[in-house]
């Protein structure tokens, strides 16, 4: 708690903090996702840097009151740059015993706990697996506990809403809690107030009740003497610009729409719902006015097939899924490799193997997307590093696909998909166009026969001739082919040549992608390597280590196939290389396999992102300090 500074003493002692992590936790039905979102919206609009992370059960409504049914939403907000939703909440809002039970182990020591005491009934305690009441048995010693009879207070506050049932009123409880936290952190009520008006435009009664609950919560904080302090977190000094909050899935969807727009083509998104990828579909489906053609297929195989057909037809063709869906798509992805058509495959990774942990995050599909196809089937793979980076990388995926006429995989994960961060809204006019040239036959009808596999010398890509173009009629397929014509050929040299050419053109994308950048010293004792959604935790840990004078650098790889052209060299510059990843060591394996340079691995398989402290500890361990 070294970052606490007392700077002013109002009548209600306000403590100034640089950053705070707060978690809202309650039953699945308690509206915690909404509460968290509202809190983070207000906080973002207020000008803090934020990072958020929802965490909810796989069931739609898991059994009420049980730990399995707890839904949580964590917000890290700060007056400086934050890169993760925070290791340990300082403040926990626990709407029931189960929520307290599951979140307590994560809480900072000395943390603040706000509980709804009305829910601490014997039944609920039993459901949560408590033998005795933690509010009474001293197990919360050391924490600052605020016992609020939230249900009672809230019902009381809404007495005047006579047309609402008690159940309806109880549904406003989360806004009571929200109001209280707004008071605690000195936030205005305006943003959420506006939202309520819009949301319940047709049910003004509900809008008013929720607003009332929120205000009551706020004034409850103001009037009771229970709270020792309020806290203030000054706005962060983010680069100037207009900001919004964005989740990874939202950013991905906007990136895709932008790519299609910039290519002057329809966006075809063929998919089959699967957690945590479905929200990309949900974001795209309402965008018909952008000529977005979403197609909900009968399964992932059909989704993949439809994308191949759309790519053949000249659309910006994209599919999105999660690990089990990739397994099903792999035969189609392989056909796409053989056809050499541009398209993008998004894998929002979740915990595996098999159905695994559908709502939890993991990075364990890397080797699957690299190698999960029969034969030699090279495919570019890229991975955004943060929610907003999904926007840039989605655009980049399309550019790479079109350049090398190849399917490209973009690997995100459940954490990136659902967590959010501020996004400095770009000016779309500044985003360069994606120039696509479809060949056409010489107008006089003469000339050479069309050669669908004649490669562009600079890129290895092949012409993208689309049906409807007179004179370029041609047939392609999954059988081995002759170079240039693409006609079926089983000739040994043809097979070898085509395999090499496909590998070559993917490898040559290294000329297109940026060189790998390094954070920290350009040589030294330890290089920490990471990829994907673990960027925030790893970068922050390295920042801290460097600040502590340790010889550590950080390389966060966004391009996994091909690797940036300078990567191999970089790895040689450090005494030790440590790869931190949320899997059994997949990138480590790739690096060793490719560069034969021994690397250490820090692997975590918890269905949860890294904590900064975990990385810090590991760095120390490896440095032997």
């Amino acid at each position: 708690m070294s970052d606490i500074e007392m700077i002013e003493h109002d009548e209600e002692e306000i403590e100034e903090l640089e950053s705070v992590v707060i978690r809202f936790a309650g039953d699945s039905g308690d509206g915690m996702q909404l509460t968290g979102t509202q809190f983070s919206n207000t906080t973002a609009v207020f000008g803090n840097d934020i990072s958020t992370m929802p965490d909810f059960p796989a069931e739609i409504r898991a059994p009420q009151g049980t730990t399995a049914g707890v839904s949580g939403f964590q917000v890290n907000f700060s007056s400086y740059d934050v890169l993760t939703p925070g290791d340990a909440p300082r403040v926990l809002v626990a709407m029931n015993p189960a929520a307290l039970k599951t979140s307590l182990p994560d809480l900072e020591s000395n943390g603040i706990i706000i509980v709804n005491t009305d829910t601490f009934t014997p039944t609920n305690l039993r459901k949560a697996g408590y033998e005795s009441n933690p509010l009474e048995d001293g197990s919360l010693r050391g924490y600052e506990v605020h016992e609020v009879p939230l249900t009672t207070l809230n019902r009381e506050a809404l007495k005047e809403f006579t047309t609402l049932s008690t159940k309806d009123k109880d549904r406003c409880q989360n806004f009571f809690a929200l109001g209280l936290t707004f008071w605690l952190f000195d936030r205005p009520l305006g943003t959420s107030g506006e939202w309520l008006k819009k949301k319940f435009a047709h049910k003004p009664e509900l809008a008013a009740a929720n607003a009332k609950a929120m205000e009551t919560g706020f004034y409850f904080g103001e009037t009771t003497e229970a709270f020792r302090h309020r806290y203030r977190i000054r706005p962060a000094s983010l680069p100037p610009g207009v900001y919004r909050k964005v989740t990874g899935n939202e950013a991905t969807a906007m990136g895709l729409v932008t790519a299609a727009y910039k290519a002057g083509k329809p966006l075809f998104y063929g998919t089959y719902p699967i957690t945590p990828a479905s929200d990309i579909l949900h974001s795209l489906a309402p965008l018909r006015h952008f000529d977005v053609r979403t197609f909900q297929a009968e399964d992932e195989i059909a989704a993949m097939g439809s994308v191949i057909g759309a790519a053949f037809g000249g659309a910006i063709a994209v599919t999105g899924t999660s690990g089990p869906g990739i397994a099903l798509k792999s035969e189609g992805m392989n056909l796409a490799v053989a056809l050499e058509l541009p398209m993008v495959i998004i894998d929002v990774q979740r915990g595996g193997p098999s159905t695994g942990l559908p709502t939890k995050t993991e990075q364990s599909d890397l080797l699957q997307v690299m190698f999960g196809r029969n034969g030699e089937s090279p495919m570019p793979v890229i991975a955004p590093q943060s929610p907003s980076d999904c926007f840039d990388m989605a655009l980049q995926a399309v550019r790479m696909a079109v350049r090398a006429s190849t399917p490209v995989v973009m690997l995100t994960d459940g954490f990136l998909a659902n967590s959010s961060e501020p996004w400095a809204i770009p000016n779309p006019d500044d985003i360069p166009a994606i120039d696509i040239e479809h060949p056409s036959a010489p107008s006089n009808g003469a000339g050479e026969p069309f050669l669908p596999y004649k490669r562009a010398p600079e890129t290895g890509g092949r012409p993208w001739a689309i049906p409807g173009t007179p004179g370029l009629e041609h047939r392609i397929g999954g059988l081995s082919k002759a170079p240039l014509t693409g006609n079926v050929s089983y000739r040994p040299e043809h097979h070898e040549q085509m395999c090499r050419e496909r590998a070559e053109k993917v490898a040559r994308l290294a000329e297109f992608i940026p060189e790998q950048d390094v954070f920290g010293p350009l040589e030294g004792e330890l290089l920490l390597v990471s990829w994907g959604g673990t960027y925030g935790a790893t970068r922050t840990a390295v920042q801290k280590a460097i600040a502590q004078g340790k010889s550590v650098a950080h390389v966060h790889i966004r391009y996994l196939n091909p690797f940036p052209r300078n990567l191999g060299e970089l790895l040689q510059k450090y005494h030790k290389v440590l790869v931190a990843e949320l899997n059994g060591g997949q990138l480590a394996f790739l690096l060793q396999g490719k560069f034969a340079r021994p690397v250490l691995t820090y692997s975590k398989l918890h269905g949860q992102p890294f904590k900064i402290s975990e990385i810090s500890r590991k760095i120390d361990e490896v440095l032997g300090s």
Partner: protein
Amino acid sequence: MSTNTIPLELTRKDFVSDQTVRWCPGCGDYAILAQMQKTLPELGIPREKIVFISGIGCSSRFPYYMNTYGIHSIHGRAPTLATGLAVTNPDLSIWVITGDGDGLSIGGNHLLHVMRRNVNLNIILFNNRVYGLTKGQYSPTSRKGFKTKSSPMGTIEQPINPVAIALASEATFVARSIDSHTQHLGEVLAAAAAHKGVSFVEVYQNCVIFNPDEWGPLEDRRERDDHMIYLEHGKPMVFGRNRDKGVRLNERFEPEVVQLGEQYTVDDLIVYDARSKALAMMISSMEHPYFPTPMGVIRQVSAPNYTEGLMAQIEAAQAQKGKGDLHKLYRAADLWEVK
């Protein structure tokens, strides 16, 4: 899409590609290919707007031999590629070529869904009731008891009827023909092409290597008329070389073959109604040798198709919200400004 106008006159040869045809001598696929190449020029569709998409199987080699756009895809998945292509370019004439294994074994589900969606495609299923390309295992349409390398003691599975599946899948055009009856086949292909929405055509096809006796008398020019009934919407169900037999509905709602003459006249027969799914279902179970096999257009109804529906939504959305504007899209959230 294309700036070209329809070319003056296409002929059969315009649709012949430069690839050598590689089916076994005598294979029924040749006749279907020839008929397709003969029928297409008559449709008035420019060649560049025609696409053939197939799966894997002997039959699925078809696209290589057509001088149009084409994809020889993977086993069972052709309808999915075709859907993506149709959605991208609703203007094309897309033909899905599949086999009884490709379309009904591994690919059965896609067929079902593409039909219920009424995607504007022409699906031609070559039914030889065997897996040709993998050398003769039984298929989902093989007769019970069929002995093959994978069923040396005979199969123990009830075959499925492609037409019944198409009907249950809500296909808006369902027809049947046979390789050897080239004229009939040509007519059916033309009718399929003319239908807006999904057209499903089962073509009985002779695999001379692995199942040469399957179609028996149906393949015989002299006998076939006694074993097939050519359905015509609005016409009574008469058949036979001498048109002296017919099909009526008996008391248990089952079709029954009757001899026309004293006991029954044409008036007792079913008057075929291609719009009635119930009727189509009923007669879909008829098959030689017990019944005349129904040939021709079994069902045809008009219904909005998938791409129409989709394009209509795009238009409606644009009419309502204006064409998509990235500025607005990015800003559709709570905003704040940092100065």
